């Protein structure tokens, strides 16, 4: 029997070239997981491989390139069924009797439908449009629209709008920063998201941890979340926002609430969330005032009442099997926007078993919801935001063609500021300074530079999206929205294509 199993089988090994190492100890100072330390009596920097999480901070910071992080070379006996991950997790649980936590999104090899969908392009019969020479429009209105427009004539006999349209969000790029709470992320990351959203004419989402007062000036570009824990929810919070979002579920962990380990709750977070310093912030699995669709309706209208019907209300749900019927109910309950969060969506902290085994792909959920709302003739009532694993502008374009009005990006935004997907967000030790609240480590994330990188990312994606629209001969994104005829499937079953509403390549 093993008495120290977790430490016997590391995931990574830190390979040092001692010819190159100048013993500057930068790696020691940078490693937040204590995988690297200095041995004075040998005058050497050495590693404790079992502590290494593979975040590669040391490798990136090493001035002489002396460090390489490698996957651990030692192998278990080949087994096509029991993977090394299964073994290690099992040893860990046998030892400690706990739930295995993780951060980030589902990394298991489930099918990626984006990669089975290809885009159409124009040839001969239909000229493609050059976005460098012709206008190309990405502006997107998010919110409830009436079924028709009515006009009337003013005294001069000129037509003017008669229909009252309820407030909508307007995004110049249909890409919005996903809900990631203050607490899960530090304030620097929130500062960066807010500034980038403003610069690009889009929005960012607070997540369920409230909005730090310092960021109230960015309210016009802020979607504030109201989750089951109601952390940081008060009248002013709602009033400064551009829109409010009721978080029912999260793609990474459908059916369970948020988790913020007490270790991450410092003074500022405590003030913003309105909870004591150091207390675990575990939001309940359901909203305890929403046990049914009619209860949801009450909360939607409570929020609208509280803000004088001046802001759209969004409802975010995890993509689950019955998502189409649920979405229809949400549209009828009065929501202006529905956010669908697929199973690849990230999390700051979740039981790994839930993240890895629950939910459905966003591609399927999105296609099913868009079709259902059309079948019921109510697609105009709500906008759909697709979330959960959007990796690049190609995914965005495909999501739009499947029926999304806009997308959320969470993981992609973190990557833009240095995340390397080590999935240790829940530890509070993020060496890149993104998900840690340790003020010393959080300084590694410079909010101005991070904002610039986020802005760059959205600019790059916007350029690419315009290129893709242009090659399809389309110059306004609404002509692609739900236009599944411009998509073709490769390597999918008939049933999968039917759900996606996409023809096979060659047809």
């Amino acid at each position, binding site marked *: 029997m093993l008495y120290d199993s977790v430490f016997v089988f590391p995931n990574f090994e830190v390979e040092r070239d001692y010819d190159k190492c100048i013993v500057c100890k930068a790696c020691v100072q940078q490693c937040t997981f204590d995988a690297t330390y200095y041995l004075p009596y040998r005058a050497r920097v050495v590693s404790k491989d079992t502590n290494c999480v593979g975040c590669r901070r040391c490798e990136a910071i090493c001035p002489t390139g002396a460090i390489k992080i490698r996957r651990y070379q030692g192998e278990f006996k080949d087994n096509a069924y029991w993977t090394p991950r299964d073994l290690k997790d099992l040893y860990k649980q046998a030892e400690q009797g706990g739930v295995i936590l993780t951060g980030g999104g589902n990394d298991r090899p489930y099918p990626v439908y984006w990669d089975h969908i290809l885009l159409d392009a124009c040839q001969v019969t239909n000229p493609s449009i050059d976005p460098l020479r012709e206008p190309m429009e990405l502006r997107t209105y998010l919110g409830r629209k009436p079924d028709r427009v009515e*006009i009337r004539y003013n005294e001069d006999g000129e*037509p003017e709008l008669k229909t009252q*349209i309820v407030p909508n969000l307007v995004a110049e790029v249909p890409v919005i920063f996903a809900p990631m709470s203050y607490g899960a992320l530090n304030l620097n990351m929130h500062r960066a998201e807010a500034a980038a959203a403003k610069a690009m004419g889009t929005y960012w989402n607070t997540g369920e941890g409230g909005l730090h007062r310092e960021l109230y000036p960015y309210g016009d570009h802020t979607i504030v979340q109201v989750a089951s824990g109601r952390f940081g929810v008060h009248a002013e919070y709602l009033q400064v926002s551009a829109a409010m979002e009721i978080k029912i579920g999260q793609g990474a962990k459908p059916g369970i609430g948020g988790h913020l380990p007490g270790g991450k709750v410092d003074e500022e977070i405590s003030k913003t969330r309105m909870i004591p310093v150091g207390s675990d912030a575990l939001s309940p699995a359901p909203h305890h005032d929403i046990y049914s669709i009619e209860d949801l309706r009450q909360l939607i209208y409570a929020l609208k009442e509280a803000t004088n019907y001046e802001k759209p209300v969004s409802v975010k749900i995890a993509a689950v099997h019955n998502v189409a019927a649920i979405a229809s109910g949400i549209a009828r309950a009065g929501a202006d926007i529905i956010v669908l969060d697929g199973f690849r969506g990230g999390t700051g902290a979740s039981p790994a078993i839930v993240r890895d085994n629950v939910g459905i792909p966003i591609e399927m959920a999105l296609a099913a919801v868009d079709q259902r709302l059309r079948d019921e003739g109510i697609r105009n009532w709500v906008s759909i935001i697709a979330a959960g694993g959007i990796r690049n502008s190609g995914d965005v374009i495909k999501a739009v063609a499947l029926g999304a009005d806009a997308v959320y990006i969470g993981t992609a935004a973190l990557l833009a500021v240095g995340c390397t997907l080590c999935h240790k967000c829940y530890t509070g030790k993020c060496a890149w300074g993104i998900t840690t609240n340790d003020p010393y480590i959080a300084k590694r994330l410079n909010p101005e530079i991070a904002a610039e990188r986020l802005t760059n990312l959205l600019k790059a994606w916007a350029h690419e999206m315009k290129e893709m629209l242009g090659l399809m001969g389309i110059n306004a994104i609404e*002509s692609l929205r*739900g236009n599944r005829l411009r998509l073709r499937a490769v390597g999918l079953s008939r049933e999968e294509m039917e759900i996606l509403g996409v*023809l096979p390549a060659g047809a």
Partner: protein
Amino acid sequence: MSWYRKISGCGLSGIISRKRQLIPGEEIIKSIVHQEERGNQLGAGFAGYGIYPQFPDCYALHVMYDHEFSKEETEEYIRNKFHVEHFEDIPTRRTPAIKDRPILFRYFVKPLSVHGETMVPDDFVMETVMEINEKIDGAFVFSSGKNMGAFKGVGGPAEIAEFFRIDEYSAHQWIAHTRFPTNTPGWWGGAHPFTLLDWAVVHNGEISSYGINRRYLEMFGYRCTLMTDTEVVAYLVDLLVRRHGLPLRIAAYALAAPFWKDIDRMEERGQELLTAMRMVYGSALLNGPFAVLVAWNGGMMGLNDRIKLRPLVAAVHGDRVYMASEESAIRAVCPRPDKVWAPKAGEPVIVPFDDSSDAWEVKGCQSL
């Protein structure tokens, strides 16, 4: 899921007399035939308005059948729902170039009010057309308006005109089309014009937004069964103008929406209205290259896509207005027009008859 055929490189022509003087069929034939280069003899068609003065209040259903069975089934269906005032073979001539012709019939009908239903007659007819086209195998209603009729088929414009004896009709206005199908050679139902009620549309171009235009229309009960992208134009105009009650000029702002950069520079009234139009009718935007002529009992509209990727020329001579893909097609029948111009991208040319005074087609015609 069904598929669609792409169409490209077509020619179109339209003539309207604003005083409702009768224009002989020869004129439109001459104009469309002049654009021979733009077709490949695989589809052509005509629509004339005011051609059935003997049945002004009847919906004239033009139906093509693949076989006798579909005819029997359709006629039974029609008789159950309509009072048939008159029906007959659509008069045709034996024309050597026209082969594999379908069975062609026309019915002049009035809806029966079944069990006191309060449905608007137009909606009733629209539903019947959709129903027949979708459900009855081998039957297609290709014209369903009052006092107007569409004639179309596989062949060149000269042959189709000869076949349907277009020269024997006179109309207040005509539109015509010659087709260059780029995919499977023509099917009779796939030729232009596409019609619904008294809307008739001829189209040159390809609608890149077809997939969403179609899904949008399906929400309102339209079913796209004709396997081509043009039919969505007819249905969108029907939805926006007849059912949503928008003036045609405003509806055109949905079909060929102004760019945001231009809307943002407008004064408040225009900005508010056009922003609302784009928000609500984004799925009705026709994207991709097109020039269309839309005709109805009150007049004619010519419209280009928002960046004018297909030709359209307009001309005025006396009370007549001409629109065609090429100026030569106009000059062929009107050598010295008073004025000739190329309409701007997305700027519709709306030509109502002089007697349609305060109707929606005139109101709001001016640009914002």
